């Protein structure tokens, strides 16, 4: 949905269609596309029928909305269809193995070592680390095979991580029906979300620009996030599912948090592309990395999508705050830092679009922008106190 095309694909390896604008949008749909749509509709209907007694109006609306949204993404970006399929199969397999009994995670081999949430997230972490190595090997040794491996591993990591989050969602309901909630409510869970969104955004650009060279850089920031995740999990035992405090029991959470992390993820991608561009501008790895114009373009696209979603996220946050705290804006440190992040990228976009600024200046800015973003994301929780103290360290 967010990537709805206004013009056909840029820089794509695919040949431009013979008649590029012969209203062929529907005609270009393959059998797989229609099958995918049918599967989504079928899944939504199945969920409706099975759980209609427990679904309220919001649930139903969100469930139905998922069909067009996932269809749009899958049709626009075909590999996404396979991801959805795999995650569905794995998550359902895990749920089936559990049979409503949490203790089976300790007994069943497949659950214990593959499909319980903690294990799946551990697999995600490991796969991201190996993917980082593969991308770097590919970049330095100019090995296409290593890069392909990196790409494959990143997709696998995303599959395992997404499965892990879905299974965690299910597990939370097994603890108690009143405890169950979507796993995006504390710092541990949103770090997983951040890794997933960053990787997905990167994989999207990897396909669009037909280059795997940037994986080495983007996977670095994902690995850093995963390292933090592991450290946080081990030192604070943060991986334990906790119930929701009253302020978080709201539908707004389900849209506010993911929108925010699309923003953070996109800014992270932009910053790492910025690092690549800075290296190229100094003649480092210049022969191995894409041309500066391509790097600039990816950086712009990432910041544009990040900014758009960060805008939505901040507004959703304000709407939620109005409901929970009685005012849509009260200069809470998290809100204030969100504003600073927003202003930073707003000025970045003005500089590029209105002033026509290009080159290393914008790259440096994108890199520093990530520092500001990181502070808004983690730093505020660590150093400042305020209402957003759910993910305190």
């Amino acid at each position, binding site marked *: 949905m967010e990537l*709805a095309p*206004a*013009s*056909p*694909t*840029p*820089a794509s390896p695919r040949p431009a269609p013979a*008649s*590029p*604008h012969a209203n062929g949008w529907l005609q270009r749909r393959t059998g797989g596309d229609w099958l995918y749509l049918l599967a989504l509709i079928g899944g939504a209907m199945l969920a409706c029928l099975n759980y209609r007694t427990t679904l309220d109006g919001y649930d139903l609306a969100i469930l139905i909305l998922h069909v067009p949204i996932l269809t749009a993404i899958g049709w626009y970006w075909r590999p996404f269809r396979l991801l959805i399929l795999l995650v569905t199969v794995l998550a359902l397999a895990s749920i089936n193995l559990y049979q409503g009994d*949490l203790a089976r*995670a300790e007994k069943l081999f497949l659950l*214990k070592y593959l499909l*319980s*949430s*903690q*294990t799946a997230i551990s697999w995600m972490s490991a796969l991201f680390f190996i993917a980082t190595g593969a991308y770097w090997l590919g970049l330095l040794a100019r090995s296409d095979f290593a890069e392909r491996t990196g790409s494959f591993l990143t997709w696998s990591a995303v599959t395992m991580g997404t499965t892990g989050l879905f*299974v*965690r969602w299910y*597990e*939370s309901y097994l*603890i108690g029906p009143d*405890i169950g909630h979507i*796993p995006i409510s504390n710092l541990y869970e949103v770090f997983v979300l951040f890794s997933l969104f960053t990787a997905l955004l990167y994989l999207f650009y990897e396909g669009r620009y037909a280059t795997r060279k940037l994986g080495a850089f983007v996977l670095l920031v994902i690995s850093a996030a995963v390292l933090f995740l*592991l450290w946080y999990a*081990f030192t604070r*035992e943060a*991986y*334990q599912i*906790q*119930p929701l*405090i*009253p302020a978080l029991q*709201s539908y707004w959470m389900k849209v506010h948090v993911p929108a925010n992390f699309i923003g953070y993820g996109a800014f992270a991608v932009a910053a790492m592309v910025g690092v690549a561009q800075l290296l190229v501008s100094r003649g480092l790895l210049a022969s191995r990395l894409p041309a500066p114009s391509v790097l600039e*373009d990816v950086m*712009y696209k990432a910041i*544009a*999508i990040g900014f*758009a979603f960060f*805008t939505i996220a901040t*507004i959703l946050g*304000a*709407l939620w705050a109005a409901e929970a*705290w*009685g*005012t*849509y*804006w009260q*200069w809470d440190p998290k809100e*204030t830092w969100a*504003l*600073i992040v927003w*202003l930073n990228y707003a*000025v970045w976009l*003005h500089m590029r*679009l209105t002033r*026509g600024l290009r080159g290393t200046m914008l790259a440096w800015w994108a890199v520093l922008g990530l520092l500001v973003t990181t502070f808004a994301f983690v730093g*505020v929780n660590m150093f*400042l*106190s305020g209402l957003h103290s759910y993910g305190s360290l």
Partner: protein
Amino acid sequence: MPRATARALIELLSSMRFAISLLTVLAIASIIGTVVRQNEAFNAYLNQFGQFWFLFFGKLGLYSVYNASWFTVILAFLVLSTALCVIRQAPLMWREICGFREHAREASLQLFHHHATLTPAVPADTWREVVTNHLAAAGFRFKVNERIDGVLFAAKQGSAGRVGYFFAHGAIVLICLGGLLDGNLPLRLMMTLEGKAPAVGNQLIADMPAAARLDVDNFSYRANVYIPEGRSSSMGVLNIDDGILLQPLPFTISLKRFIIDHYENGMPRRFASEVLITDTTSGESFERTIEVNKPLEFRGVTLYQSSFDDGGSILHFAARSFAPTSAPPLEFEGEVGSSMTLSSAGDEYSFKLELTGFRPVNVENMLESSATNMLDGLLGNGAHDPARRELRNLGPSYTYKLRDATGQALEFNNYMLPLQVNGRWYHYSGMRASQMEPFRYLRIPLDDGSIDTWFGMRRTLFDPARRSVLARRFADRNLDAPDDNTLHERLTAAAEHTLTLFSSGGFDAVGKFITANIPEAERDSAGEAFIKIMQGLAWESWQMAREEAGKPIPEADDSLAGFVRDSLAALSDSTAYGAPFYLQLSAYEQRQASVLQASRSPGKPLVYLGSLLLVIGVFAMLYVRERRLFVLLRHGTMTLAMSSNRKTIDVDETFIRHRDTLAAALQATISPPPQ
């Protein structure tokens, strides 16, 4: 030249450079606001910064940055700057949206970054049809201009993206204006224009001056309403500048019940207030439940569940004196939030007792997190508890302050029920002299389920009149040769001396005595001797206490030895307890209070509308791509040029695609030739 100056001023105000400078200042100011904690009590800042800096920062408005006048001025300038920019850009943008630029010269087309010349092979009379079909199929709107140098097709698409500019920038103006309406600017204006002034210090609401009361029709405010269960209120309170203002509400809120639900692990699950709202003018009333995330809107005022407090629970106490006389415990009751004077009959002490808090439920983790296995974190479900916490509800706790005649206060935090630690039961009472310190806990051990025995031991041990009796009994029991009078005398004297020391300050006093009077080489053995004597005395006092209470003396065993050890530790600690009595809670009637926030925010619709426009505007600006394609048909050749408002790689691709498609349809050669 005032006109030129005015124009230059408008130029500056509406320039992007000015707007960005303002944004930078705004960002830095906002950062200060996140580093300096906002809207704290002035005393806290005074302590933190010292006299000089406290005043200096206060002058700068750093304690309430976002309400400081200079911050508001920057915001106002930002609104002005953005508005001027939009107004200035409007005509230009409008021309861009409506116009086709069908008068573009050939020379200027050649200057476009994307341009090419086609030399078609097909007959010239088919060109127009081919170009028209191509533009229509590609979704362009176009205008045809037949002129001397040929026929120009001026085509464009995506001009709606320009509307995004107005939406996004207009949205900023709307949001800032809405924010200014909902901020405390209206309040400040009222304070200046209508002479409203906050009341400082503790006053009853009825005694507040009229200047501290706002109008019921006040259009913008955010006030707190405190309502104990079973009572009602129609008055909100605004905290401002270390004082308060009263905001009457157009209705009365009666709190029937305040509900807190907890999860098993003690985390709160639900805060809810069951209220009855009565409209002041119409007298109509209705019942409703206000919860976190579920506010109530009535008569333009929105009520939110903001906080909760004790609403004046009644606590029934038994004050057990530490004095050697065995008077029965003093029983009395008090309401949380109130204070009273407690003095002994003989005027040995007189305290002001301030009952400050009561919590009916305290869930604590009784096990410190143990070292966990690495694999615990890597494998399995997310539900298993790695630390193997042992959560326990410790029951009600209560806090109070004892203020002496000089105004010095000690704060206490006691638990109503005895707590079991390592298999033994104790009553816990925490004490501290200042808010900065943690509570230090006195653990009074239970004997036969009550603390009576311990108090009996304390009376016996700390009563100077009974010291000699106790010392002699101790000597009687512990002397192997009971006939040796000299030895008996010496042991009695030593025991009496130890008792005197211990009574004056517990083991601390004993330790000090040893350090001061005994050579270093003998201190260890002396210390051991003192402890042995004290333990013996404690045994003796335990027996005496039970005899006095008419209880049998059981056989000594390990658990008894443990009890005596704990008693001795508590006896020692009790010398530094600071209060002459232990305040035990015997019963309570809980009454909670709910704190609701009542607000009127007239700017909210503006802000929400602005937010909607902002999202539409941002997406339109970033994702609706404006493209202009010019095709100039001349004799024998065709000039092709393209422009875009965004310079991204896909513009190159798009141009090449249009050029090649046209060239193919016209069987044309391209110049400059494609790379």
